C-alpha cells in the first residue's frame, strides 16, 4: 500500500489562477480526494469505537433501566442532565458565529462559520439524546410533545422542562435550516466539480438546482439575514431557558436570577473552546491554514478570554448574592460547593475556566496553536465540571439533611458520556469528509478581488 503521505494533496498549494478558484480548490478537494489524511482514519476509528460503546450503553440502559446509573436520592439528575447541559452549551458557538457575528458584520467569521454550525448541530443532537434517555421510559418521550396520547392529557406548559422541549427543539431545527441553507451554494460547487454520476446526483439533489442567479442570490441573502436575525435572540434564549430548569426551582444554589446570563456566557465560552479544539487539528490536517488563519484563532482566543472572565465574574457574584441575600440555605449551598465534599470539582472548574484562559492576555499565547488547543480542551473539561458542580452539589445537599448523600457515578455513566463524544466526533468527521467545511461562497465574497470594481462602500 502506497504511503498516503507520498502525494498529500493537503500540503500542496491550492490550484487556480485567481483567488476565487483557489478558495474553491482548497475547500473542495478535501471532499474530493480518494483518501483523507491518515489522521482522519485514526480519529474516525476511535470515534466509531466510542460510538459503539454508546450503542451498547444505551441498549443496556433500555434493557435494564436507569438503575445502571449513579443517579440516586437525592441527586436525581446526575450525569444525564450534566451531559445534556454541557452539550447544549457547546452547541451555542456555531449559531452565535453564524448569526450574531453576521449581524455585527464580523467578516472574519466566514472562515469558521460552516464547521462551527456543523458542530452546533452535532452537539445539539448529543444534547437531545440525554433528556430522552433520562426519562427512563424510552418509549414514552413523546409525552413531552403536544400530540394526543392515550391518557387524553396534554403537556404542562407552565413547567420550565416543557419550555426546554420547545427551546431545544426550535434551536436544533433553526440551526439545521440555517446550516443547510448556507450550504446550498457550496453543494452546487461540489455538484459542478464532481466527476462521478453518483456524487453529481447526490450533491445535485441537495443543491436543489442552485445556479447562482443574482435574482436568486438577492432573495437568498434576504433569507439569510432574516434567519440570522431570528437565530440571534434564539441563541440567547436557549441557554436562558435551560437555566430556568434550575432558576425557577426552589433549590438553594439554583434559585438565582443570575442564571440566564451566566449560562449564556458560559455556553459561548464553552462553544468557542470547542470550535478552537476542532479548528486547530482540522486546519492542520486538511490543509486549510490559508483559510482558517492564525488570526482567526487569535480572535477566537480573545472571545474565550472575554467570556471566560464573564463566567468568572458570575462565579464570584454567586457568592456575593448568597451572602447578600442573607439566606442561610443559599450561603450554605455556595460554601458547600467550595469546601464541601465536592470541592474538588469546584476547584477543577475554577482552574479550567477562570485560570487557564488568562494566558490569552499574551499575544504570543494567542498565536500559538498548541496553547490554543490545550486551553480549548481544558475549558471544555471545566465547562463540564461547571454543570457537574451546579447539578450535583446542590442536588446532594438539599433542604433536608436527612436525605443528603454523595453522588457516585457508575461505569455506565462514564461509558455514556464517552459514547456521546463518539457520536459527536463521528458525525463531525463524516461532515469533514463529505461536506463543504468552509463556506466557500461567503469567503469568496470577501476576497479582495470581489470588490475590484472600486467599490465605494
Amino acid at each position, binding site marked *: 500500500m502506497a504511503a498516503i503521505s507520498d502525494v498529500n494533496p493537503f500540503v500542496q498549494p491550492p490550484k487556480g489562477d*485567481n483567488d476565487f478558484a483557489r478558495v474553491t480548490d482548497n475547500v473542495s478537494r478535501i471532499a474530493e480526494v480518494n483518501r483523507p489524511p491518515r489522521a482522519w482514519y485514526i480519529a474516525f476509528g476511535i470515534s466509531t469505537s466510542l460510538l459503539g460503546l454508546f450503542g451498547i450503553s444505551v441498549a443496556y440502559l433500555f434493557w435494564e433501566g436507569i438503575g445502571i446509573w449513579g443517579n440516586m436520592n437525592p441527586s436525581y439528575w446526575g450525569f444525564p442532565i450534566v451531559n445534556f447541559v454541557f452539550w447544549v452549551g457547546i452547541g451555542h458557538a456555531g449559531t452565535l458565529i453564524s448569526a450574531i457575528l453576521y449581524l455585527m458584520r464580523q467578516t472574519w467569521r466566514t472562515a469558521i462559520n460552516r464547521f462551527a454550525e456543523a458542530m452546533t448541530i452535532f452537539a445539539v443532537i448529543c444534547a437531545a439524546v440525554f433528556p430522552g434517555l433520562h426519562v427512563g421510559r424510552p418509549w414514552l418521550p413523546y409525552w413531552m410533545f*403536544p400530540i394526543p396520547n392515550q391518557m387524553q392529557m396534554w403537556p404542562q406548559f407552565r413547567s420550565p422542562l416543557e419550555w426546554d422541549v420547545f427551546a431545544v427543539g426550535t434551536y436544533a431545527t433553526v440551526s439545521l435550516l440555517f446550516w443547510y441553507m448556507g450550504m446550498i451554494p457550496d453543494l452546487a460547487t461540489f455538484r459542478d466539480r464532481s466527476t462521478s454520476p453518483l456524487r453529481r446526483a447526490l450533491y445535485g439533489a441537495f443543491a436543489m*438546482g442552485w445556479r447562482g442567479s443574482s*435574482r436568486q*442570490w438577492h432573495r437568498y441573502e*434576504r433569507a439569510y439575514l*432574516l434567519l440570522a436575525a431570528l437565530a440571534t435572540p434564539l441563541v440567547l434564549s436557549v441557554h436562558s431557558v435551560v437555566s430556568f430548569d434550575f432558576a425557577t426551582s426552589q433549590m438553594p444554589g439554583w434559585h438565582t436570577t443570575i442564571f440566564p446570563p451566566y449560562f449564556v456566557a458560559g455556553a459561548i465560552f464553552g462553544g468557542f473552546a470547542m470550535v478552537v479544539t476542532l479548528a486547530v487539528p482540522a486546519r492542520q490536517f486538511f490543509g486549510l491554514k490559508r483559510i482558517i488563519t492564525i488570526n482567526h484563532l487569535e480572535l477566537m482566543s480573545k472571545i474565550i478570554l472575554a467570556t471566560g472572565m464573564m463566567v468568572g465574574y458570575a462565579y464570584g457574584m454567586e457568592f456575593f448574592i448568597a451572602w447578600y441575600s442573607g439566606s442561610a440555605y443559599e450561603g450554605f449551598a455556595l460554601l458547600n460547593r467550595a469546601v464541601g465534599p465536592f470541592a474538588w470539582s469546584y476547584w477543577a472548574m475554577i482552574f479550567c475556566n477562570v485560570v487557564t484562559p488568562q494566558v490569552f492576555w499574551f499575544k504570543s499565547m494567542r498565536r500559538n496553536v498548541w496553547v490554543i488547543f490545550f486551553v480549548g480542551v481544558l475549558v471544555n473539561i471545566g465547562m463540564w465540571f461547571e454543570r457537574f458542580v451546579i447539578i450535583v452539589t446542590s442536588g446532594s445537599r438539599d433542604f433536608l439533611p436527612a436525605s443528603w448523600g454523595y453522588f457516585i457515578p457508575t461505569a455506565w455513566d462514564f461509558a455514556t458520556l464517552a459514547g456521546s463524544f463518539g457520536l459527536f466526533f463521528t458525525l463531525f468527521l463524516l461532515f469533514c469528509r463529505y461536506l463543504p467545511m468552509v463556506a466557500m461562497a461567503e469567503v469568496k465574497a470577501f476576497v479582495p478581488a470581489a*470588490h475590484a470594481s472600486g467599490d465605494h462602500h
Partner: protein
Amino acid sequence: MADKKKDSDQTEHAEGEAPLHGLLAEYDSTAALIAASKKVRDAGFEKWDTYTPFPVHGIDGAMGIKMTKLPWIVLGAAITGLTTAILMQWWMNAVDYKYIISGKPFWSIPASVPIYFELTVLFSAFAALGGMLALNNLPLPSHPLDLKERFAKVTDDKFFLMIQAADAKFDERETRALLEGTHPTVLDVVLEDRTSPSKLPTGLVYGLLIVATASLIPFAFIAKARFAKSEKTRVHVVGDMDWQLKFQAQQAHPFFADGRAERPEIPETVAVGHLREDDHLFRGKEQDTWARTFPTSIEPSADALERGKEKFGVYCAPCHGFAGDGDGPISVRAQELAEGTWVPPTNVHQDYLRQMPVGQLFDTVTHGIRNMAGYGQLIEPEDRWKIVMYLRALQRSRQTSVDDVPEAERGALK
C-alpha cells in the same frame, strides 16, 4: 467529441437545431459584470439574469432588482406561529385539560412567553427558507444552461450574464451587438434543452408513490388503536423496566404466610419513639371528648405565645391572614383570579370557633378539615398547641374592653 465541440465553440445559432434560449456572456471580474448589467438594464430588458459564484456587492442596483417580498412572508409566519402558541397553550392547559398546579392560574401570560417566542421563531425560520426556495423557483432539476460545459464555472470563479430569447426586446443580432459592447471574455448561444427528460423516470415516480403510501401505514395503525378496543394486555417492550425487582403495595409476595407484600403493623408493638400515649398532648382529647384545657406541659407564657405567633405566621397566615380574618395573600390572589377552584379560608373570629374546645382546634391543625390540609406532619405537637394558644389570643383580642387592661396602664391608652 463532436458534442463537446458544439458545446464550447459554437457562437452562432445555426438552423435546424434546438430553438434558441438566450445569449450568454462570460466575464472575469465583478466590475465587468456590474458594468455590463447596467447596460442591459438600461436597454430595458426584462427576461435576463446574471450568474455568480457569490452574492456580488452592488449587483442588485446594477440589475434593477426590486426588494423581495420575502420579509412579509416571514412576518406572516411569525404571526401565525405566535397565534398558534397562544391558542395551543390556552386550549390545552386552560380548556381541554385543566391542570391544577400549586394554585397557579390555568392561564397566565408570563408562564407561556417562552413558548410564544419559540414557536414564533420556528415558524418564521421555516418561512424564510421555504419562502426563499419557493420565490426562487427551487428545486429546479434542469436548465438549458446546464448544457454549457463552461457554465459549471459559475459556482467556482466565473461571472455570467444571459438574456433570454423570450424577452420582448430580444433580437439576435442587436442583442449580440449590445453584449459584445460589454467586452465579455466569451459570448455564446444557449439552446433550449431537448436532451434532458422533461419528466422524472416512471420507475422513480412509482417507487416514491409506494414509499409515501407505505409510510402512512404506521399512522393508520395508530389511528385505529385510538378507537379499537383490545382484550390483550399491552406489549411490554422492555421487560426489566416494567417488572422491576421490588414489591409494591397490594402486590403478592410468596414469602409471607398471608401472601401480601405489604406488611401490616404487628399487633401489640410500637416503633421506637412512636408510643405517644398522652392522649391530651398528642390528640387533644380527654376521656374521649375534646380537651377544653391545654396539656400541662404547654404553659401559657409570653414565650409560648411568641412561638405560636411565629409558627402561625409561617403556616397559617398565608391563607388565614395574620389576624385570622381569612384574608391571607394566597387567598386574596386566588380570589382575584376567580378561577372557581378556590375555597376561601375560614375567618377564625366566628362564634362557633370561639366556642370550639382547644383540643378540636388542635385536631384541625393536625389533620386539617374538609378542604384544608393537615399540618401534623410539618409541625411538632408542642408548636401546634402554641399555634392554637395564639389563635385563642387572636380571638380574644376582638372581644376586649378597657377593663382587660391593668388599671395602672389605662392612662397610656388615652
